[in-house]
């Protein structure tokens, strides 16, 4: 048995076996307090200044080396640089050295503690969260002072990178060819580490809370990006088992990859479009490599997060136009800002909402901030001159909302016309169907738009009334709940009756157990993470529409989700046993469900 097994959230699949190396760790709280003799105070101050200067130089150089396609990260580094230069941090620490005659480490810690006290009393959630940036920066300086900085260049051979948290500044500094995997104690599903790992095609786990206690530098570890576990000091049997798994996984990857550029067409000739969900433009390479036929969901929030100012229309238009041009003639669907809830931006602060998921977010937030909205609408419209661009509004609950959003878009287009800027007047307009209210009036909404995109992640949560990150009720998150299946079918049918396309984005689209049922409903398009495309395309290419329709009929006749899950699992597993070995399905917790 391995010495310890720790668990985390898998944000990139695969296996890695190798040596663990920490690039940073959380600091122990017991920092040494030393008294500095008055004569030596200037020297101590110089040591502090030097540590700040080194980190600043490091960041500035990382900033300059950021490749053009990662330019969004520049803003994060800019904010960090600003904090490094802030007199309240560096200046306060220097003052404490002088006033208290203490060592630089102690003074820095105290300066941060003072900031924490001053910020802790503020009402504004967003501002309070800026403290994290202060922590990230002071930790880097502290590591310099303590001499615990690891020079990555000195790392021998290939390693698994571990950290308390990885910032873009850290990852820019890494030599990617030496990295077999990432694991961090902090971070969630959407963290930067995941995007990076998926782009590199290596496994990554985040939110491994016990990571720093369980793993030492140089430990041999097995990283299981399928099961979300790290085995520390594994025994012979475990090593043999995982060597075998790794081998199988690579073979499987090669096999599915081979056919990924073929169209997603069933044996009996039914064709589905398979598109990709992306968040960063740099993911485009992965979309094309994995056989994505377009971008069904471009999440536009990233350009607004982790920065202090707002992106300008020109900045956004440049970026959006690049994306449209690279993908052309393939489709790119821009989803307008889905901010609010857990994603807030600097310039607007965070509202104190008891129920943010049901609060001022997405289209509601944009309607409250017309200038912010218009800037983005103009940028998307400008990009429509460079490729096959569609626009899509999230969280639509009724007709009036769609009409108001469309009016805003017309307004933006009028302004562009006045300014003499080009755009495609016929740009298709769609909406996300993710609220039960929108499902019920799908036939009415269909008259207003050119396409629907069913966002199942939210639709499931709002339909069964749960927050799936809440462990007490997450067992109710059931994609194949009879109510969800009927909702999706209702929306697809309404779209087809109105002669518009029905697309689906959400994790359901990358679940091999769910996709055949969606096919049975004659979904026109599914959009999923780029890395999941080859596997899903392979499933579709082995399917028959007649079988999918039969499965759908059977499933709709079942009265409980438990029954549906069993039926689906037996049917799909019998058909594709080898496809499902490395797959953790959304249906996995069904035994608890109703």
């Amino acid at each position, binding site marked *: 048995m391995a010495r310890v097994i720790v668990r985390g959230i898998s944000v990139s699949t695969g296996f890695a076996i190798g040596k663990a190396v920490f690039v940073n760790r959380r600091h122990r709280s017991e920092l040494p307090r030393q008294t500095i003799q008055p004569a030596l105070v200037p020297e101590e101050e110089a040591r502090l200044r030097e540590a700040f200067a080194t980190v600043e130089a490091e960041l500035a150089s990382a900033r300059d080396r950021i490749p053009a396609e990662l330019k969004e990260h520049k803003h994060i580094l800019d*904010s960090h640089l*600003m*904090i490094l*230069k*802030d*007199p*309240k*941090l560096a*200046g306060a620490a220097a003052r404490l050295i002088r006033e208290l005659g203490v060592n630089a480490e102690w003074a820095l810690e105290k300066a941060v503690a003072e*900031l924490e006290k*001053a*910020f802790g009393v*503020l*009402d*504004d959630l*967003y*501002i309070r969260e*800026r403290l994290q940036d*202060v922590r990230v920066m002071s930790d880097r300086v502290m590591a310099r002072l303590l001499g615990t900085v690891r020079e990555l260049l000195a790392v021998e051979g290939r390693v698994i990178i571990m950290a308390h948290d990885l910032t873009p500044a850290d990852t820019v500094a890494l030599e990617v060819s030496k990295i077999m995997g990432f694991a961090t104690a902090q971070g969630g599903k959407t963290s930067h580490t995941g995007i990076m790992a998926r782009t590199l095609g290596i496994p990554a786990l985040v939110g491994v809370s016990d990571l720093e206690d369980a793993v030492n530098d140089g430990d041999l570890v097995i990283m299981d990006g399928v099961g979300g576990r790290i085995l520390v000091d594994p025994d012979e049997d475990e090593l043999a088992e995982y060597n075998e798994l790794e081998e199988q996984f690579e073979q499987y990857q090669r096999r599915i990859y081979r056919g990924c550029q073929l169209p997603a067409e069933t044996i009996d000739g039914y064709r589905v479009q398979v598109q990709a969900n992306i968040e960063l433009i740099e993911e485009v390479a992965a979309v094309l490599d994995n056989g994505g036929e377009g971008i069904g969901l471009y999440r536009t929030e990233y350009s607004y997060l982790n920065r*202090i*100012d*707002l992106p300008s229309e020109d900045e956004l238009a440049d970026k959006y136009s690049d994306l449209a041009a690279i993908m052309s003639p393939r489709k790119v669907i821009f989803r307008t800002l889905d901010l609010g809830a857990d994603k807030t931006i*600097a*310039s*607007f*602060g965070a509202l104190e909402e008891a129920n943010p998921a049901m609060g001022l977010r997405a289209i509601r937030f944009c309607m409250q901030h017309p*200038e912010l909205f218009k800037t983005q609408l103009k940028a998307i419209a400008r990009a429509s001159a460079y490729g096959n661009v569609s626009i899509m509004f999230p969280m639509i609950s009724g007709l009036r909302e769609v009409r108001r959003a469309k009016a805003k878009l017309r307004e933006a287009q009028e302004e562009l016309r006045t300014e003499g800027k080009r755009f495609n007047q016929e740009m298709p307009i769609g909406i996300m169907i993710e609220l039960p209210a929108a499902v019920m009036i799908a036939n009415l909404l269909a008259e207003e738009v050119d396409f629907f995109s069913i966002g199942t992640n939210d639709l499931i949560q709002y339909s069964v009334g749960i927050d799936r990150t809440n462990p007490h009720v997450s067992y109710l998150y059931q994609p194949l709940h009879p109510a969800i299946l009927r909702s999706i079918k209702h929306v697809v049918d309404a779209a087809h009756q109105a002669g518009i396309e029905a697309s689906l984005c959400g994790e359901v689209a990358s679940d091999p157990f769910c996709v055949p049922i969606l096919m049975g409903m004659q979904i026109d398009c599914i959009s999923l993470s780029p890395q999941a495309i080859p596997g899903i395309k392979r499933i579709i290419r082995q399917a028959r529409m007649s079988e999918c329709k039969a499965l759908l009929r059977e499933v709709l006749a079942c009265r409980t989700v438990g029954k549906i899950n069993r039926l689906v699992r037996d049917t799909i597993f019998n058909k594709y046993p080898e496809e499902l070995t490395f797959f953790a399905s959304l249906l996995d917790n069904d035994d608890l469900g109703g």
Partner: protein
Amino acid sequence: MDTSAAAGEQCVRQVLVTNQLGLHARPASQIAREAQAFAAQIVIAGQGQSVDAKSILDILTLSAAMGSTLEIRASGTDAAQAVDRLMELFAAKFGEK
């Protein structure tokens, strides 16, 4: 309203926060960035608190909302220019529309 003292290089002026979002992160970063370009010591006071205009972290703790009155105090060789520059930022509502 200009109450800048003729004596020495002291300059004090009052300003009303007129932008909708108040001294939030973006205005704060603009103030700090501009202030850092001057040699003068610059303090922004209001709500019984005074903060260093060169520190974005400090300005944020002021949490000055729209409608609050603040005082900009600068001392040093370029005090007057510094205050003028900051007043411009406030007048332009920090680029908010």
